[in-house]
């Protein structure tokens, strides 16, 4: 290795391949330990990047506004997404409706870095999710438990996030979903291997992915927390529960001082197990988003039940 001179390239390299599972899952691995922030315009995207976000989610309305305004929530205007892609150098994600593979085709044509097939938008298909294997761009999908996560991975999802309950500022559902996933994985690891077949059936998940999860002791793809994270403490809580990183939707730009809160949440995710730093970054952040208590919310208003 120490010899001088240029590499001669006398032997040609292999053929490059794009859009492989390795490459799709790999970007999610590079996002780990980071915060992905919802932004609705290039100015917010710059604030997020300056605060240290590892990616942004470009969308027209944050979940809190989708809740407040109602109506059908769809993929955002390509012009608005492109404006955000031009404003920052970090990866840009965008949302497609569950099952709406044409919205996904459009987002891939725009060159977004990740597609979120998201329950926050109004589902376009009540039986089928997008066949994500058909795309070069990677997908992230929401899940409430291990079975749902593995079904999405089987369809080609390269990253999973808890659904939580988006747009509420209440972390309780994200905690519930993270704990359910972790509990099922622990259960899987202590089980007799002869019991895996029936457990796979109970989960509604393919056997080979159940087996792989057992061997890895974790999901085969990166798993972020999402849906209700509003404070640095919420973000660190999700990290200590074993999540790989955090999405913050309405929690930043619906708060009193978005730039300061965004930076504090980024630092809380890096130093999630250092209470002294968490105490320091939690100070004087101004108003948090107002929030909706999930336990007093009618079932019909919950969006985590979307997706199958």
């Amino acid at each position, binding site marked *: 290795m120490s*010899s001088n001179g240029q*590499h001669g*390239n006398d032997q040609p390299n292999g053929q490059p391949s794009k859009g492989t599972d390795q*490459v799709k899952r*790999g970007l999610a691995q590079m996002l780990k330990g980071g915060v992905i922030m919802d932004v609705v315009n290039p100015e917010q995207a710059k604030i997020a990047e300056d605060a240290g976000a590892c990616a942004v989610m470009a969308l027209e309305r944050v979940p809190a506004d989708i809740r407040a305004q109602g109506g059908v929530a769809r993929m955002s205007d390509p012009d608005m997404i492109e404006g955000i892609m031009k404003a920052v150098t970090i990866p840009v994600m965008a949302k497609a409706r569950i099952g709406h593979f044409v919205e996904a085709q459009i987002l891939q044509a725009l060159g977004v*870095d990740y597609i979120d097939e998201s329950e926050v938008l109004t589902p376009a298909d009540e039986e089928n999710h997008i066949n994500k294997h058909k795309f070069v*761009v990677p997908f992230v999908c929401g899940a409430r438990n291990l079975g749902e996560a593995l079904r999405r991975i089987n369809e080609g999802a390269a990253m999973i996030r808890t659904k939580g309950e988006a747009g509420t500022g209440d972390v309780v559902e994200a905690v519930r979903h993270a704990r359910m996933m972790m509990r099922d994985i622990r259960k899987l690891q202590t089980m007799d291997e002869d019991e895996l077949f029936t457990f796979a059936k109970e989960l509604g998940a393919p056997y080979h992915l159940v087996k792989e999860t057992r061997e890895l002791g974790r999901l085969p793809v990166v798993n972020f927390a999402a849906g209700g994270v509003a404070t640095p403490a919420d973000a660190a809580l999700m990290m200590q529960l074993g999540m790989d990183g955090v999405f913050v939707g309405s929690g930043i730009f619906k708060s009193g001082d978005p730039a300061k809160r965004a930076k504090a949440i*980024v630092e809380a995710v890096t130093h999630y197990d250092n209470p002294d730093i968490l105490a320091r970054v939690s100070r004087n952040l101004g108003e948090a988003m107002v929030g909706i208590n999930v336990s007093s919310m009618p079932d019909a208003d919950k969006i985590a039940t979307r997706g199958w």
Partner: protein
Amino acid sequence: MKIGVLALQGAFIEHEKTLHSLGIETTQVRLPEHLEGIDGLIIPGGESTTIGKLATSYGLIEPLRAFARQHPTWGTCAGMIFLAQDIGIEAQPILGLMDIKVNRNAFGRQVDSFEVDLEVKGLDGGPFHAVFIRAPLVESAGPEVDVLARLDDGGIVAVQQGHWLATAFHPELTEDTRLHQHFARMVRGT
């Protein structure tokens, strides 16, 4: 021997797992005091802007630079950007050590990310399967820099300059441990 992995953001656990499989002890570096007692440092892949901002906020830039001047340091992807002297923009904090000019996101967006079998100078046992994710590219390298690997179009993707190693791709994402073994030899040699 203990190798530190900068653990501000990104794929630091993957590097630790590979090193553990080689029986090498690791530690996560998040604050300046975590640099004490380590013999080498890996700066992993992740978002270079995020890592740069966190390193600045926690007073790590100067301690990292001082450490890397003295000890073997390896940057993968974002870590390569960190080690470079020239990345074409002023705003982003870097260590600025290796005599290379690096173009960040040189290949475009995620849909242009790829994997390829690569000939790496000095590695026995055939090509190295290299995974490039929104990867940087070395646009030019100074006379002291040893070029270890190029793409078919001539683009430089692995370099070494003395005790500094930089790869545009991610050896921590594949099972091939040869580059980690190479780095471990660099650390042992000092």
